[in-house]
């Protein structure tokens, strides 16, 4: 399987990515605007607080006669006949503003949560839909772990960016901007001095967070190597023990563990340098402001209250710089996440508007007419000019080597794959003119390696019909000869299947899958080598029971077994995508062809059994 290539996509412009990010917000973007407005209110109120200090020290306590720096609409209320009363009023105002601010902080967070969680919700659902609707090509070219990672951590990265990071940037910018604005009203020189080192911090932080990304990638790689080793050691514990390689395993793990630990520590060393040096620069900035502030205040250029206020504002500017740098540095991470998600979102659905919606009655006559097929990414034809005709109710065995195109042939019939040339008709309607869901509801295919959901056995069998009765489930389980196995489980039909439950054997899985397919009658049924792990006797029993139940259904069976082929109405022998032979068993063994050959190889085992004739 090839890795999905994201390199080319990540070269796309940042603007385009931002556009995509905005597009995915859908109609939720007004929430973001509301959040920004609330943020503005919160930040504005925050920048008022230091001014109270100035007012109390300069005006109420009388350390300066330069007047208040508070906005008039607040200052005018802080008037009383005694100093104590004025202090209490000022403190009361501070508290009122604090409550006001707290309310808006809460509201802002509430809106952001709605915004972010709805975006996450929609995106997750959309991705799920997309994956369900993606075609065979997409699935066969993707790795499960990779897709899951995209649907989980990449969604989180995106959600966090638009719902938290953007807001965070806005908050920091508003805080810095409003603080500068307030400062500039107090004293221009000091404001400029406050800004001398801030850009340096921003720059250092941006560069740092960009650089450590590589380090993170290395750590992740080392950790993955280590966990893969544990994973393989644990799942292969029989092999480890049987070859007595415990010491080797421990040594190997020690190396990987050490490598991961060291790379982790290397990053921490860089972190130590970054945090201590930026701390140093930040305090340098403080020191600058303090020194000039002291000089100005000593010379009476600014009041004492103003000096203290400046110290407070300085913090509003210095500390956000590192965070801003982090967000800027992290941005490319989000771009990558968005591009990786786009790959899924932009993938064309298997069902689209151009699909027909006709639903003709399906009886079971199947006709392949000069069908040719190749995979999009391959030059080799999988099927060439395949041409055959099957009457309703017939049983057809398809036989051939691995890679001869048997499975592909059957996948065409349910349009999991689409042929390029020729046509396939069911009851004289081209299958390309039949609505896909409808087609698949009528043409049942049981895959060789069927997938069972992690639900109970009963739910798995009844999955296609949520209202199904228990006796119906048992009935189909009996036809598929899996009923006896199931009742032998401790919890019978309520046994949980899969990762958290019982592990079924390959044969049991196949039979559950057959039962599941038998739940609803199908005019056409395909066994895509789906009896391979079932023993021959059970195989025969299932096929006979099925024939009794579903007399009218057309049945295709891909098989390796001569016994199965022998009972079919028609045998199709495929080789390299071509039909080599067709006919009944008796006809084909007379021809010196592939079927005859397979038959001979399979019977060679019996040449070794001189006692064979004793048996019958």
């Amino acid at each position, binding site marked *: 399987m090839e890795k999905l290539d994201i390199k080319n996509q990540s070269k796309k412009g940042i603007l385009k990515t931002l556009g995509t990010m905005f597009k995915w917000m859908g109609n939720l973007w007004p929430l973001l605007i509301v959040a920004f407005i609330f943020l503005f209110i919160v930040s504005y109120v925050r920048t008022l607080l230091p001014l109270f200090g100035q007012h109390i020290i300069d005006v109420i306590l009388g350390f300066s006669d330069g007047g208040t720096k508070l906005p008039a609409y607040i200052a005018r209320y802080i008037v009383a006949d005694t100093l104590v009363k004025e*202090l209490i009023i000022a403190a009361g105002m501070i508290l009122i503003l604090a409550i006001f601010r707290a309310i808006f902080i809460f509201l802002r967070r509430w809106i952001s949560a709605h915004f972010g969680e709805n975006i996450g919700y929609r995106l997750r659902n959309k991705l799920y839909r997309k994956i369900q609707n993606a075609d065979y090509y997409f699935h066969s070219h993707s790795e499960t772990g990779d897709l*899951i990672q995209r649907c989980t951590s990449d969604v989180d990265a995106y959600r966090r960016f638009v719902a938290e990071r953007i807001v965070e940037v806005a908050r920091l910018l508003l805080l810095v901007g409003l603080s500068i604005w307030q400062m500039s009203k107090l004293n221009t020189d000091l404001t400029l001095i406050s800004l001398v080192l801030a850009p340096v911090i921003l720059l250092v932080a941006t560069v740092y967070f960009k650089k450590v990304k590589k380090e993170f990638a290395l750590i992740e790689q080392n950790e993955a190597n280590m966990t893969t080793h544990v994973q393989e050691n644990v799942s292969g514990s029989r092999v480890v023990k049987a070859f007595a390689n415990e010491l080797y395993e421990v040594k190997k793990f020690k190396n990987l563990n050490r490598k991961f630990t060291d790379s982790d520590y290397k990053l921490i060393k860089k972190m130590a340098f970054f945090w201590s040096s930026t701390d140093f620069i930040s305090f340098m900035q403080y020191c600058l402001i303090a020194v000039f502030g002291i000089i100005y205040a000593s010379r009476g250029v600014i009041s004492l209250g103003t000096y203290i206020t400046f110290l407070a504002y300085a913090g509003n500017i210095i500390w956000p710089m590192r965070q801003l740098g982090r967000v800027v540095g992290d941005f490319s991470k989000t771009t990558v996440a968005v591009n990786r998600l786009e790959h899924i979102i932009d993938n064309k659905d298997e069902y689209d508007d151009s699909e027909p919606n006709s639903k003709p009655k399906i009886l079971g006559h199947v006709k392949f007419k000069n069908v040719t097929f190749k995979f999009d990414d391959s030059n080799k034809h999988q099927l060439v000019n395949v041409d055959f005709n099957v009457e309703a109710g017939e049983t057809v065995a398809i036989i051939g080597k691995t890679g001869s195109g048997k499975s592909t042939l059957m996948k065409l019939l349910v349009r*999991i794959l689409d042929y390029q040339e020729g046509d396939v008709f069911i009851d004289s309607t081209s299958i390309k003119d039949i609505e896909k869901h409808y087609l698949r509801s009528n043409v049942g295919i049981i895959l060789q390696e069927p*997938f069972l959901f992690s639900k109970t056995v009963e739910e798995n069998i009844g999955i296609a019909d949520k209202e199904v009765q228990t006796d119906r489930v048992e009935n189909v389980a009996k036809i598929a000869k899996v009923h006896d196995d199931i009742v032998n489980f401790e919890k019978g039909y309520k046994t949980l299947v899969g990762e958290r439950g019982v592990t079924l054997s390959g044969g049991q899985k196949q039979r559950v899958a057959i039962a599941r397919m038998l739940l609803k009658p199908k005019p056409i049924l395909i066994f895509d080598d789906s009896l391979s792990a079932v023993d021959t006797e059970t195989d025969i029993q299932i096929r006979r029971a099925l024939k009794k139940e579903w007399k009218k259904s057309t049945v295709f069976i891909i098989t390796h077994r001569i016994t199965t082929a022998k009972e079919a109405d028609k045998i199709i022998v495929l080789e390299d995508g071509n039909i080599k032979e067709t006919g009944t068993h008796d006809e084909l063994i007379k021809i010196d062809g592939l079927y005859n050959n397979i038959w001979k190889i399979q*019977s060679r085992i019996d040449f070794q059994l001189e006692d064979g004739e004793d048996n019958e």
Partner: protein
Amino acid sequence: MNDHLHDEESFTSQKIDWNVWKKILVFMKPLKKYAIFAIIFMILLATTDVVYPLISKFAIDDIIRPNMNGADADLSKLAVFIALYIGFMIIQAVSVFMFILFAGKIQTELAYNIRKEAFHHLQELPFSYYDRTRVGWIMARMTSDSRNLSELFSWGLIDLTWGFALMIILVVVMFIINWLLALVVIVLVPVMALVSIFFRKYILKAHRQIRKINSKITGAYNEGITGAMTTKTLVLEDNNYNDFDDLTGDMRVRSIRAAMIQGLYFPTMLFLITLGVALVYVVGGNLVFQLTISVGTLYLFISYVWQFFEPVNELAMLYANFQQAQASAERIVSLIETEADISDSPEVIEKYGTLFDYKLENFEEIIGDVKFDNVSFKYNIGEQVLTDFKLDVRAGQSIALVGHTGAGKTTIVNLICRFYEPTNGKILIDGKDYKNRSMGWLHSNLGYVLQDPHLFSGNVMENIRYGKLTATDDECVAAAKAVEAHEFIMKFEKGYDTECGEGGSRLSVGQKQLISFARAILSDPKILVLDEATSSVDTETEQVIQVAINKLLEGRTSFIVAHRLSTIVHSDRILVLDKGKVIEEGTHRELIKKSGAYHKLYTNQYSEEMLELSIR
């Protein structure tokens, strides 16, 4: 089965279990010196945090205030200010740098030690442990739990030290300067602490729920992707989507709720602090007015109120993390303390060495006789599998075990490999109870080929060499040639350097089998256990495998859980098992003549070949 699996949720006790922590603390012992240094630098850092406002107070009271009434500014003390400031800046930067280094060392080394110990112990655990423990469970211990703990003991320790040191120093300094204002500030601290703990608990709980749903969503994606084709064939798209929507909807509701709690927490804390600020302004303003304290002191206390916020917040967070980490600690201790119920006795270890340190000089040459002496066996859970089982096998004999699923074939194999030990009776190898020799001795003389061969990531050569780690390339190639694997390996573009992928995923089943044969033949065991594959491969590969198996068995005592007719026919003795008993025994010819159970099994199971015989 399910009830016996370790469950993630079974470790969520609320009470602090000191016994568990003591066991974890053992891992901290070698890191004690780092911890001491980290604590020292943290206290230093907390001191600088308290000193900065004091320096500013000095500037206000001793530089700015004296100058305010005079005409010429006297800035002679400014140099003192600058010197002090820069001095503490350096102390601070150094402290930050050092504490990150030391905490980082603790974090990475502690995780390293925990993982090392856990992995080491995993190698000693018997196979029964792996039978009842999911791979994912073990993986989580090695990754997230070890990380949780190491972070708690490093950064948690840092936060704890800093938080307490800062608060204590603050309280002391405040009381020294003015006890009344100190009281005003300190009254609020318990309130803040209570609010923090209250909220943190809820936040933790909410996040736990979210993580749970999140893992369900990941599981749903996993099913949606791996089961995509099955979903299509059963037309389950809408069905699955609705189930998925339930999950994501739940996730949205809970995430918003969690955000609400967090959204309330921060403003509440902020309000409390502002309340402190307001109180300090009222009380402190009065004191300034009464000339009890200086204006610099007022500034100092305002700064100190703010400084209480972070330590309280972080200590509350630490408290919550500690509770969470308790579960991690319990799980890791449970892994490390799992007793190996199969292990060598001290006397055996004395003579033969441990699993990791063989005393090869004491290893006896093996002949290969195997004897089951009245062996009874039952798994921890479940029925009696074997009762008084007797079997005597001479060196070089090949034994085919046949019978239905559950007859006891795999159990016998597990006992020979000593993956499990008899509950009663003895297994003798060369006439000596195998418990009297070490596991290392047994496994160095034993080969084991699995039904579903497990390969490791790494190239083909490395995988073959796994059978004998000291083998040269030539020996590996010779082994591959011996089992007919050489030919297909050379067809790979990179030959023996071809990567097998995780678990051998890049190779076909047949290829994996042949490589696992090469691996086994390289180890040149005297006793070979072959758990034959049932999965179908095409007829030609089947033949190659057949030839390879015959070569593999030559000159070895072998036990075969047989599924292939020809393997059975070629074996020296066939044991027909039913419910843990040998019901028939003999060569193929003898058993067929008996017309008993084997005959019936043979005609049923291998009727394919029988039918072909009758055609002839």
